[in-house]
């Protein structure tokens, strides 16, 4: 499995591959959006504003998953010093940042018609904002620290500390009184979302995951080329 992410395999991915991936992604997202915006029913309590969920929930999930990946890659970098992990983490960070931002923006747009306000300093929203700052910090370190080894070390530390925030985000709604509602989909019990709403949610999630994967692979490929070039230049 890991072998597929080895630099040479990634370098062999050409434009055809990305075009196919993009077409599949657009197809799935269009089907997902048709389901989410037209076919799926309005919510009994919230009415049509529930449709924001079909973007909000997948975005939050991807934002958390990407930082989870950064956390694992950072620990591996600190301990085993495997060269491809920092490149992978570096490539996935912008994807996570964008979806974290989308999650927060759609969340406030959803908050206004349901709760009555755009923003509340409750545990879920605040910890999500902290995640956004961790993304910004992680990316800035790679951008502004010029020495590669130094940037690698500092960003890994930020990645590890930031990933400690992930369980806080996940369980904030259970640990404290929050304005944000508890999770509808859990591992232990049946989902609290009716299946007519669960299907578009699943399609949107798959579509956006493929989108993330595509952007990640493109960026990862660029990072590998950059890394190889810098190595070559050093050799001279």
């Amino acid at each position, binding site marked *: 499995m890991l072998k597929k992410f080895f630099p040479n395999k990634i370098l062999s991915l050409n434009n055809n591959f990305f075009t196919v991936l993009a077409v599949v992604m657009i197809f799935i997202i269009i089907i997902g959006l048709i389901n989410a915006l037209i076919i799926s029913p309005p919510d009994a309590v919230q009415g049509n504003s529930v449709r924001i969920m079909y973007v909000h929930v997948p975005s939050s999930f991807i934002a958390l998953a990407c930082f989870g990946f950064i956390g694992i890659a950072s620990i591996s970098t600190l301990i085993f010093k495997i060269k491809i992990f920092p490149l992978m983490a570096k490539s996935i960070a912008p994807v996570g940042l964008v979806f974290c931002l989308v999650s927060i923006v759609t969340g406030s747009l959803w908050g206004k018609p349901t*709760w*009555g306000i755009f923003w509340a300093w409750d545990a879920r929203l605040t910890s999500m904002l902290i995640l956004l700052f961790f993304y910004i910090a992680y990316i800035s370190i790679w951008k502004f620290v010029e020495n590669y080894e130094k940037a690698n070390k500092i960003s890994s530390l930020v990645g590890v500390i930031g990933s400690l925030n992930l369980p806080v985000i996940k369980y904030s709604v259970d640990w404290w*009184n929050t304005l944000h509602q508890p999770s509808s989909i859990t591992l232990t019990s049946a989902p609290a979302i009716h299946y007519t*709403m669960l299907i578009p949610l699943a399609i949107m999630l798959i579509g956006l995951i493929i989108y993330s994967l595509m952007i990640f692979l493109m960026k990862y490929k660029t990072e590998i080329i950059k890394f190889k070039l810098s190595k070559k230049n050093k050799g001279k």
Partner: protein
Amino acid sequence: MISRKVKSRIFVTILFLVLVLVLILFFFRSLEENIVYFLSPTEINNKESISFNKTIRIGGLVKKNSIIKKNNSINFIITDLNNEIIVSYSGSIPNLFSEEKGVVAEGKLQDKKYFIAEKILAKHDENYMPPEVIKALKESEY
């Protein structure tokens, strides 16, 4: 096998993680009051020192048949099924505000059982269902 160098790095990383975790724990302990977005009527009831001049938030369910509307003002009871607080408010209320649904009120306590709100927020639960399903569920109850 794992070399000594890697072993020492694992040790340092774990030490670092434990240190950060302890720091975060202290951080949350000291912020406990601020992290909680609202207090339930029971928590208000059990609290020994309450500052009546401070703006706080209380939350729970709107008790059934407790909403009394008069002109622009509204009175209702927030309950957590153990304790209750009477809330008085005038102003606009969110669409989702209704009986037996979650609510958060921001304002000042007059005493442990009476609260004057400056802002009302609706808290919705994690259940999502189309209207027809709710209707069918309600019909099957009778």
